[in-house]
């Protein structure tokens, strides 16, 4: 029976959500490809992961090696290329994460396998695999077909829901093909982004600003936003361009390279809704977006939207919120 490989992603002793999303998201596809699902787990001291993964895959293929302790694309590439050559999975799935982006392209190039990155869905067309991915900041979808099998794809975070299928995987241990030390690339350490005064992940209400606020170092702009946040008892967070400009500290950034937040209210002002941002806030209970562009992707994740200049809307909103507070 054919196999689908799903690369297990873990960091600092924890399995990452993308692993479960891939394992459950590829079930239909695997069925259509007539393939079983193998979770490929590389690392050191990973027995507890094996337990956690048992109910999610048909098989767990484990390679343990001291050299695999921390993620190192070079080491991973060698092990995976060996496993893929040997077992010839029809499809290999890797997360489109920092880890996967570093690993997958070189691995695919080494093996000469077609790789579609950042996929959000799959179809089979006349027996050939077709991947769905986004372009132009999410304004366009593309259907991309793979010329030859086997296939490789990286999967966008949160593109699939993680639903436990209740399987009981067979566990197979394979010897590590790594014979020598990896010298081209060496992991040194992790560094944590500096911790600031506010923890946006703990906030119940968030007012988030994006590039649409213009110059956030401008005191007027800042005070318009801060006033609303004050009235709402909200913490101010932002999209990455605001951090890149140095206008807010890194720990206020929401999204894949920032924080993931799940507040009761997420009010997005002048944020287009790039998926890297959305990934960090889509689980919020109520999402409201104010954006001038009626086609901004943020409106597809928001519960309520206002298509207008935020500088026209926000001052009135502040006023109305103030009234609502006074009125009861």
């Amino acid at each position, binding site marked *: 029976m054919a196999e689908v490989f799903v690369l297990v992603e873990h960091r600092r002793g924890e399995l990452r959500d993308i692993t479960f999303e891939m394992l459950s998201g590829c079930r239909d596809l695997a069925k259509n490809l007539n393939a079983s699902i193998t979770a490929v787990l590389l690392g050191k001291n990973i027995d507890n992961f094996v337990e956690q993964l048992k109910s999610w895959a048909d098989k767990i293929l484990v390679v343990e090696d001291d050299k695999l302790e921390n993620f190192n694309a070079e080491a991973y590439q060698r092990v995976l290329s060996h496993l893929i050559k040997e077992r010839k999975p029809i499809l290999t799935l890797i997360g489109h994460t920092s880890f996967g982006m570093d690993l997958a392209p070189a691995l695919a*190039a080494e093996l000469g396998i077609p790789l579609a990155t950042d996929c959000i869905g799959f179809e089979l067309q006349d027996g050939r695999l077709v991947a769905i991915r986004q372009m132009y*900041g999410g304004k366009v*979808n593309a259907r991309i077909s793979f*010329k030859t099998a086997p296939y490789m794809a990286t999967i966008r975070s949160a593109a699939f829901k993680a639903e436990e299928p209740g399987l009981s995987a067979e566990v197979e241990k394979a010897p590590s093909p790594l014979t020598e030390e990896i010298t081209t690339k060496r992991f040194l350490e992790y560094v944590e982004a500096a911790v600031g005064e506010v923890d946006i992940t703990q906030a119940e209400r968030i007012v988030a600003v994006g590039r649409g606020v213009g110059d956030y170092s401008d005191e007027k702009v800042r005070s318009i936003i801060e006033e609303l946040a004050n009235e709402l008892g909200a913490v101010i967070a932002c999209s990455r361009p605001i951090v890149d400009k140095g206008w807010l500290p890194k720990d206020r950034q929401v999204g894949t*390279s920032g924080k993931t937040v799940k507040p009761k209210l997420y009010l997005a002002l002048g944020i287009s809704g790039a998926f890297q941002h959305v990934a960090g806030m889509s689980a919020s209970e*109520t999402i409201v977006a104010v954006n001038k562009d009626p086609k901004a992707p943020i409106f597809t994740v928001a519960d*309520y939207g*206002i298509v207008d200049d935020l500088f026209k809307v926000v001052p009135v*909103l502040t006023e109305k919120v103030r009234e609502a507070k006074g009125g009861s």
Partner: protein
Amino acid sequence: MKIVVCVKHVPDTAEADVVITPDKKGIKKEGLAFGINEWDEYAVEEAILMKEKYGGEVVAITIGGKESEDTLRRCLAKGADRAIRIEDPALEGSDAYALAKVLCAVIKGMEYDIIFTGAQAGDDGFGQVGQTLAELLGIPHAALVTKVEPQDGKAKVHRELEGGLEEVLEIQLPAVLAVQTGINEPRYVSIMGIRKAKKKELKVLSLSDIGLSPDEVGEKGSLLTLEELYIPPVEKMAEILTGAPDETATKLAGILDERGLIPK
């Protein structure tokens, strides 16, 4: 230090409406503003900062039509020493793998210590060209790089991970470093500077100049085929509050109040 930086000239679609062409293989370019890919702007700056610190040479490379010389001229004005543009009708329909082959063919005969690329392009968002190029050249790479400190034949490199975490690596040079935005502050370059840079060398090469056959690129030389583009179906759409700012803000405040989202 010998540095190569790969750049791309891309349309800005953040605000503009995107219209798909009738053949469904591309988008209408008319009326769109073009410029250097956001990630590449940081890559070029990093390359020039390196040169300013350690001496050496920066070569900027792009694959694209005549209009992409705008982007190369900017790189030259910022401080790149020379530029190369590869153009060939056979390149039409190339996937990221084929484009990496083209870059590899240009670069492999050159001397280099670091090759900078952007971590991804704002138009197609593949995020794979730099890493693929590294594999084809047989050298190491790091993606999503946020800091680079070269030290005799090696470089200490920071990579951005999720959740505000970074990892620090030591990587052997030469290497490909795919740069993440925010790594530096790209400098301004004046139009006069761009005009002055017109004197710098900008070579235009075709496929035969770099020793590739048409079959190795384009649709034939690619592993993926773009079947079609379409506007994504709207799965969920926000309830849009309509009216003048007064009305919309009032409605919204009402909704927030109803949902108990206004602290009292």
